[in-house]
């Protein structure tokens, strides 16, 4: 080791000793964090795929190639394709009104939007049973007209909408609040119509957060278990979504198939987190690299 590095190290150490911990403390903390994350994050993540592939790749693929599994995948995609656009539309509308206007009762509105996050998924299902079940408010009327909501697609959709209502809007509100109203006001003063203002100014400014909100909403919609479990009735091939299918397979001791389907949902979750990481990076560095020339000129007029 040469003398220069030693001096440099010492210099660094001396500077850092003011506002950071000793190497020992630092390493211990990192080790503690790693241990905890290994137990509760890495091992479970690895276990999903290990269990799914236990019977070999053929058994893994075979888990998806049967009527019940395909029906569950189809139903899950169908539910998400109804729920996600509705909640995205709601999210944009609610975020617009909350972030850009001052009105009486705004706080109550925000509390109402957050409500589904505070409620147990089982209760989220229960409230729809109470509304549409045979003993519920609309139950007898629905039975008379032969309309099935509970233990059918509409019930699953409603419960899933309820559970995932907050996700898009909660991503948008803080961003739209921090962006303020001036850009939209500028668009209006320049003669833009409301729709032009929205599509050309508002939407481009929120697109990344909107994308993440939509993807998170989608992941939660596809993965919802408790609420859907209550309203679905577990009818194989008809009202079983992917998470419910996982439960049934697991309870039948068909672990490989259960984990195979679970691994698809896990991939969805991992992709969701990757999108989140990308969106956050975009938010920190909104445009390409800053140009050195513009720094030199600092607004002087030639």
């Amino acid at each position: 080791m040469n003398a220069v590095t030693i001096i440099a190290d010492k210099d660094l150490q001396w500077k850092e000793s003011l506002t950071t911990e000793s190497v020992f403390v630092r390493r211990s903390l990192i080790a503690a964090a790693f241990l905890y994350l290994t137990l509760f994050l890495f091992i479970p993540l690895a276990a999903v795929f290990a269990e799914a592939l236990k019977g070999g790749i053929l058994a893994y693929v075979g888990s998806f190639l049967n009527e019940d599994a395909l029906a569950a995948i189809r139903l899950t995609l169908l539910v998400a394709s109804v729920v996600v656009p509705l909640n995205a539309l709601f999210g944009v509308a609610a975020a617009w009104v909350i972030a850009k206007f001052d009105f009486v009762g705004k706080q109550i509105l925000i509390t109402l939007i957050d409500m589904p996050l505070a409620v147990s998924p089982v209760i989220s299902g229960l409230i729809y049973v109470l509304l549409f079940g045979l003993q519920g408010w609309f139950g007898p009327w629905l039975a008379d007209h032969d309309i099935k909501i509970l233990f059918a697609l509409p019930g699953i959709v409603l419960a899933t909408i309820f559970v995932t209502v907050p996700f898009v809007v909660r991503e948008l509100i803080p961003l739209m609040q921090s962006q303020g109203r001036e850009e939209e006001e500028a668009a209006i003063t320049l003669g833009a119509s409301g729709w032009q203002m929205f599509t050309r100014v508002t939407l481009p400014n929120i697109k990344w957060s909107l994308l993440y909100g939509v993807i998170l909403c989608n992941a939660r919609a596809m993965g919802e278990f408790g609420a859907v479990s209550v309203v679905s009735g577990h009818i194989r091939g008809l009202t079983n979504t992917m998470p419910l299918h996982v439960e049934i397979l697991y309870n039948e001791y068909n672990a490989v198939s259960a984990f195979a389907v679970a691994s698809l949902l896990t991939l969805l979750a991992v992709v969701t987190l990757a999108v989140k990481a990308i969106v956050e990076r975009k938010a920190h560095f909104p445009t390409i690299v800053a140009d050195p020339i513009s720094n030199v000129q600092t607004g002087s007029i030639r």
Partner: protein
Amino acid sequence: MSIQVDHVTKRFGAFAVLNDVSLHVQDGELVALLGPSGCGKTTLLRILAGLERPDQGRIFLHGTEVTDRRITERRVGFVFQHYALFRHMTVAENVAFGLTVQPRVQRPSAARIQEKVCELLTLVQLQAMAGRYPSQLSGGQRQRVALARALAVEPKLLLLDEPFGALDAKVRKELRRWLRRLHDEVHITGILVTHDQEEALEVADRVVVMHQGNVEQIGTPDEVYERPASPFVCQFLGDVNVFHGRAVQERNVADLPPLPDEKRVTTVGVVGEHEVTFVRPHDLEVHRSRTHPSQLEATVRYVLTAGSRVWIELSTQDSMQAIEVELTKERYRELDLREGEIVFVHPRHRQVFKIPQS
């Protein structure tokens, strides 16, 4: 386009932000709305733009009432305090925005829009920046993009909200001279809001001084500076020494206006009335010996040299009131003053206001 503001009042809750304000602006004028923060100047600007509605009163643009017209029908260009550039669009796209959102029938061709954007960027000297994003520009450059964007739709009226507020001192000064030259070139009616008196006096044809929702004075920069209509205007437009006193019979008015103090005051009103006299630091003349009987005797407390100017703080013998004097460096060298020395001062120019008895 001429502007007529007719008895406009605006309240937020119980608080009157604008209190029966009236104002007339000639076609082609550049007018500054000047006042401290909270005086209502920005609200007035936003009412003119159609961003706010007045509670009472009417607004006329070019003789036509527009009080209830929507912003898009008013043809005004608005430049926001923080520029409000569209962050996801390039400079050229920002400038073109107002043209590209026009209804298809009125919208110029793509080639014409590009030409127009090019002309405007030349006007604001940013041709080279057309492809940059706002985040890659300096504050001064952003401000000029905002101006070009507002001018693109050929507004008849240009409204600027604290246009240089977020810039540093040097860029500010350059940009406001540039704005003045630009205005002389395009001759558009313009209204600019500012809290910086230097900016208002330098840029505007006329200045509207506002205070607590009222118009205190309207006049050319020289008028408001030389002949302020109220104590507030006098104090707001630069440093000033304030003397309180009671009116007495004045002897030699024509000769030399005396400096008042507690005992010996001056003036215009009825003898015995409370008065306040304002003298700007550079309007005070300082002598080593008494050259006139009404001069005030004072002691030099501090001397502070700042570039080409010298600031001297005096205190009067009897009242210990601090008086600030601004001298040129030459005059200061001539006098060769030291702290603790006795001098004699009198004003070349002063403003006296009666104080209403409450």
